């Protein structure tokens, strides 16, 4: 039973990442009809937002402390981060410690702006072109973004640790010990997903967007500038991917190709959930995450070796063949 619960927990944190990325992909696909291969890169940029903030907060000035000497006998150089001198040592240290959660606040405007620029600057010109062209140009963009980050931050992973108070393990029940941050990540993703759904469901803006997803032309005929709203949705989708990346940093140290690693799986998730279906993307994300963690149990891998490596792809292939629309796909979308 304990093993069972642990596997579900294991699946949830990976599943949360899949669900968040797939949600953004589906938002873009459902509104603008664009297949965005650069979405993984947005996830990666989100993760590097927290790297950037961490570096920024750790910027420090050097003072010479005459009372101490270093091992060569010279007066020791003490580095004091600016935030500590501004807010006092304790508050400053706490701010640095909490740099990843703070990066969430920082990443939201940055990611929305990046999404905005991407849509207006590039994707806009590809609405009328074939899906293959959209795939190709966003694939090229993904390479470019990845290389820019590599040029700026190098090829090695950069640690972005979680705050001390959230980095330990929690004893959930007898025999179930689980890292706190992964639980935080799960709840965070639930909140983000809930917020996106609430935004679409309960605001007038969201209502118009949903109407546009169902029938773009009619909404346009009613005199509503749907393109403007869709551009904002692209920004929100980029924001969701970025937030997923920010919070994923402590689980997996950000590196420049983490986006590509997640991209392929997120596409599979979207297809399993059903192209254009938001609940489908979320459900499929969690489902495949949990399925993957169950498949990597030793009991299972003893029977079918290697199943943990391929289970997601296998499920996707079966789903596409027997239920081409995906789990919750709407009729008439990409058929």
């Amino acid at each position: 039973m304990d093993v069972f619960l642990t596997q579900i927990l294991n699946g949830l944190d990976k599943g949360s990442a899949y669900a968040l990325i797939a949600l953004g992909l589906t938002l873009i696909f459902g509104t603008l009809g664009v297949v965005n291969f650069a979405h993984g890169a947005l996830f990666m940029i989100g993760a590097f937002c927290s790297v950037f903030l961490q570096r920024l907060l750790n910027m420090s000035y050097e003072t010479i402390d005459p009372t101490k000497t270093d091992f060569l006998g010279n007066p020791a150089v003490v580095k004091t981060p600016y935030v500590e001198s501004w807010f006092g040592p304790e508050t400053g240290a706490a701010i640095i410690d909490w740099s990843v959660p703070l990066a969430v606040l920082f990443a939201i405007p940055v990611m929305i702006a990046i999404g905005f620029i991407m849509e207006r600057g590039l994707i806009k010109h590809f609405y009328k072109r074939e899906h293959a062209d959209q795939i190709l140009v966003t694939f090229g963009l993904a390479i470019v973004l990845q290389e820019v980050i590599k040029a700026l931050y190098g090829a090695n992973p950069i640690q972005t640790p979680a705050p001390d108070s959230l980095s330990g393990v929690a004893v959930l029940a007898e025999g179930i010990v689980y890292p706190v941050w992964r639980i935080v990540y799960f709840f965070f993703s639930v909140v983000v997903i809930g917020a996106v759904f609430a935004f679409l469901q309960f605001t007038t803006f969201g209502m118009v967007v949903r109407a546009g997803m169902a029938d773009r032309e009619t909404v346009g005929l009613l005199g509503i500038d749907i393109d403007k709203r869709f551009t904002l949705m692209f920004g929100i989708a980029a924001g969701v991917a970025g937030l997923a990346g920010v919070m994923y940093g402590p689980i997996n140290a950000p590196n420049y190709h983490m986006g590509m690693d997640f991209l392929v799986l997120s596409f599979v998730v979207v297809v399993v959930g059903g192209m254009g279906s938001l609940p489908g993307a979320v459900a499929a994300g969690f489902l495949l995450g949990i399925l993957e963690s169950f498949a990597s149990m030793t009991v299972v891998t003893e029977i079918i070796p290697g199943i943990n490596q391929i289970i997601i792809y296998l499920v996707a292939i079966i789903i596409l063949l027997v239920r081409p629309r995906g789990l919750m796909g709407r009729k008439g979308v990409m058929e």
Partner: protein
Amino acid sequence: MLGLGKKDTSLLLVVVALTMLAPFILNPFPSDSAMAQFNAGYPDLMQRFVIFGIFAIGFNILFGLTGYLSFGHAAFLGVGSYSAVWMFKLLSMNILPAIILSVIIAGLFSLIIGWVSLRRTGIYFSILTLAFAQMSFALAYSVLTPLTNGETGLQVNLDDPRVLGVSATADGSIPVTNLFGLEMRAAYDMAVGPWTFTFSAGYYVCALVMIAAFYLSIRIFRSPFGMMLRAIKSNQTRMNYTGLNPKPYTLAAFVISGMYAGLAGGLMASMDPLAGAERMQWTASGEVVLMTILGGVGTLIGPVLGAGLIKYFENIFSKINDTVLHSWFAFLPDGIEDFFVSIIHPFVGKGWHLTLGLMFMLVVTFLPGGLVEGGQRIAKAFRKKEDDKPKSPSTEPAE
């Protein structure tokens, strides 16, 4: 000639001339000059040019003619490499049986994957092929380790049986790949004045294979079968209404292009008898897409040009480091020199992928027909003549 039209014959002759004279053409700089690092005429790189040329020609038969965008073609290349290395381990170091086996195995493999994937079109097809390729990659890395040797990659060893050959040579080393005794790594250096030209047996074997592959692709493009594939690309629904079933045609195209990939994989293993799983990764599949698009999808010569260009950049561009840049701008005052170097630095050396990505985006956005379309446009501008020749084929996928 050979059942080709006049234009195609001259195109084929150009390709033959280019590949046969490549050791000269790619070595324009004397071997001890400062520009010698831009010489691409060494066997290893020339072999890669033609091998990836074959790969891209094959990919173009699928994507260029039918419009089905496969994101999993590297899987077939990987399978081809593995089967060739197994032939070297079990049978002999002769490359002929190895290449034949790799083509056959890749063909079978693509038959299975194609039969499943081609039930869907458009983006779903791309994702299905991507899923299959990633699955093969994951399997090659983990469970199939007895077959693929996992992360280390499959290599030939001294204690392999090699029933038709020898396990080890007289001096106790691993025998080298050969074609009926002609060693693949045999090379002849010709020195002409300050130039050195290397003629490698391996390169010429690859080049001959590529010419044959190119000839075959011309024949496919011009055949009724090729017309049928184009019909699938332009309007599959209409084709259905005329009572034709497009499935066998697309499947045939998929298998043919899979076999081309297998051939490329087999040749790759023949030049350097090892095979690794990273050849199957989806980024490798992405690379062949880049090559085909960059050169000109749906054109005959485009994929070859694209493959050559990308491989040239990968090997030559990535070698330009700061020292080289400084020597280029040495004539400028120091401050300006550093400024130029720091501007160009991110785009060369390790950052050459950035240049590639930018170039690719520009081509997709402004020049959907790739380099071939660019060449045609320039030629047209020079001629200043209004001819109503249709533009190079567009890249519409099948829906």
